[in-house]
């Protein structure tokens, strides 16, 4: 028995040494949402940049939220160099001192010659963040099983379109969609949500389909739910659905009416090391060409106007044109609502509590 223990000790010591020897030191760590989205970033940003500069960049997944960043910054031990966050997190984190400020003047001009300030869509460059994509929450359904889904009201109509619905677990953007289904025009949605009556209206509308809802949390779940046949229609991130269609040949369709679009931006946690390389990466990955390249892997819109002209077809299917699948394409943008980050920054906590209480009843 002594021998067994000695052997075990030696093996573990040796394996520890081997592992220690072979663990590589990564130069910068970029954190993003995983799945098809991260893949598009790795192909369009990480690999070209690493090849061009010789640095290494590691990609890590997370599911949103600032908890990790906050913990790292508070402890003074930041290991994440770059995080891809939603606009409301970008603003909130900046206000609370979680991010480094980024000087917008370092951003390069657009490929068509316009200055960075003009080229970026309004609101996509803030004190601490540089935007990269426009994404949208839309309604998706299986085209081989149903057709004729045209408006947001159809999503809430379980009589005309029977079957379960998939919704993101949380008030956002379900409250907005509920109001739009009730016929509220996009431009009045947030004004209405700022009143108690408006919120009650949204919850009442959600109540009508309450029993048929399957709640999802991660971006990869809606395509899974549709593929399994668990739901007849679901809200989803448009890029993930597009990916299921293009890469896996699923017969999913997207209904763009009532889409709620938002931005994703790069931020740098305060106190992160390797600032020079990180800023260089940001400059590269938000350049015109990189953004257009990213759009050939997943259908999220680039935030630079100059990139629109360079957007081509899907990376391995030359006859699949990406332009028509962007949230910002004119034919999809008819009844679109931009997510109001200020409203959610103020009311997220309270509405989340109310939503959880509503769910529990």
């Amino acid at each position, binding site marked *: 028995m002594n021998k067994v223990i000695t052997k075990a000790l030696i093996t573990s010591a040796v394996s520890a040494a081997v592992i220690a020897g072979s663990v590589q030191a990564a130069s910068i760590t970029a954190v993003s949402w995983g799945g098809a989205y991260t893949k598009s970033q790795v192909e369009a940003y990480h690999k070209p940049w690493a090849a061009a500069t010789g640095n290494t960049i590691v990609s890590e997944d997370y599911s949103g*939220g600032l908890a*990790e960043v906050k913990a790292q910054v*508070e402890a003074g031990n930041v290991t994440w160099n770059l995080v891809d966050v939603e606009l409301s997190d970008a603003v909130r984190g900046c*206000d609370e001192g979680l991010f480094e*400020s980024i000087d917008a003047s370092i951003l390069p001009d657009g490929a068509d010659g316009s200055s960075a300030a003009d080229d970026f869509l309004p609101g996509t460059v803030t004190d601490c963040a540089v935007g990269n994509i426009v994404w949208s929450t839309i309604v998706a359904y299986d085209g081989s099983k149903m057709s004729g889904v045209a408006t947001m009201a159809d999503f809430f109509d379980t009589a005309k379109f029977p079957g379960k619905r998939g919704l993101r*677990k949380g008030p956002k953007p379900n409250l907005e969609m509920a109001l739009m289904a009730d016929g509220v025009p996009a431009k009045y949605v947030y004004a209405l949500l700022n009143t108690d009556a408006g919120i009650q209206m949204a919850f009442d509308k959600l109540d009508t389909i309450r029993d048929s809802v399957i709640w999802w949390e991660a971006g990869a779940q809606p395509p899974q739910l549709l593929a399994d046949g668990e739901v007849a229609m679901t809200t989803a991130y448009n890029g993930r659905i597009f990916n299921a269609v293009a890469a896996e040949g699923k017969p999913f369709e997207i209904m763009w009416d009532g889409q709620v679009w938002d931005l994703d931006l790069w931020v740098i946690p305060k106190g992160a090391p390797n600032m020079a390389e990180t800023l260089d990466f940001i400059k590269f990955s938000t350049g015109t060409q990189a953004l257009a390249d990213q759009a050939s892997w997943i259908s999220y819109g680039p935030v630079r106007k100059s990139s629109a002209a360079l957007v081509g077809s899907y990376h391995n299917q030359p006859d699949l044109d990406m332009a028509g699948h962007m949230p910002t394409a004119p034919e999809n943008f008819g009844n679109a609502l931009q997510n109001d980050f200020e409203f959610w920054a103020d009311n997220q*906590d309270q509405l989340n*509590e109310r939503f*959880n209480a509503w*769910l529990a009843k």
Partner: protein
Amino acid sequence: MSTTKELIEQDGISLKDKLAKATKVQKRRALLLTMPLVIFLLVSFVMPIGQMLWRSVHNPTVSNVIPNFAIAIQQWDGNALPSESVFEVFVKDLVTAKKNREIGKTVGNLATRINYDIPGSRSLFTSTARKAKKLKAPFKESLLKLNKKWANPTLWLSLKRNSKDLTPAFYLAAMDLKYDERGNIVKADDLYQIYMSNFIKTIKLSAIITAICILLAYPIAYVLSVLPLRQSNLLMICVLLPFWTSLLVRTTAWIAILQTQGVVNDILVFLGFLSDDGRVQMIYNQTGTIIAMVHILLPFMVLPLYSVMKTISPTYMKAALSMGARKSYALRKIYLPLTIPGLGAGTLLVFILAIGYYITPALVGGEDGLLISNLIAYHIQKSLNWSLGAALGAILLVTVLVLYWLYNKLIGIDNLKFG
């Protein structure tokens, strides 16, 4: 025996004292052996939890961001609005704070903190801070002119309350209570009551799961303990294999099995018990949570029961039967009491694991399978209200410790046998 004199040794010291002195060395040695582990646990386990509990009452945001104001507001008596001097201190502090980008001392932190009490005030603070530099005396008038919301006395009451470093506010929120406009403690709106009901649901669900585990574990533990070793080891694989398989994999397997288009529904439709449209929803709800968690926790109940049952000699039951007892009576009076240590260990373990479980309900619980640990994790990871998460965690911890103490009184910790 109280009338006999104490035994005294030849050198005048009582026997009792001598014994105590002799065993002192051994006692110290025994303590010394356990000290490394105790110290390790104190550092790596007790301190982190202690720090978390401290977070649930520590509330330094207001005094960190606007320190002078925190002192000045204490003079206010709570009626109407504070005086002009308080307003002046407030605006001056806000201007200083706006320049500060250190975490914990920014206006954003202050805004978030007050937003917990009064939703909607976050943008009020951030927008005011942006314009604070331009405000001139008289400050009260100019602030009210900037934004009418500053005339709300509830806001100033909240600021006054939160200027103190310790606060029960998070525990109040965790118990579905809140402060009203006058600063009294009242029950929160019906629309926002989640924590206490969720707590009760968690305990109920855990109790159901524990009960089902006991019912299922007893027969198979019995079978495993009476079968000859050759066969029982083969059957034991059925218990150990799930135990060793990753929790996530088992949960995923249950998703695949219980889905509406999954194995069970498919079989039931194939066999004709269900029509194709009438498939049963067994996942993403409480049923799915219960089934998955019972499957995951069953080995924890079987193993202690098995190890105890193995030590029960079969002659006891035979003796009882030979004396005329019916089998059910013998089971109840002889066998059951002998298995209490294993039953107790298994019940304790399963119940406590069930209360604290967070992964499985997160994956298969859907909307009504959410447990309190999911809410705690939500506050830690998503809403960043770490103090509220810590308060909820503290309440959960106290509940578990109370249950553990009860268990100790009823069954006794020395009776724990885990196999």
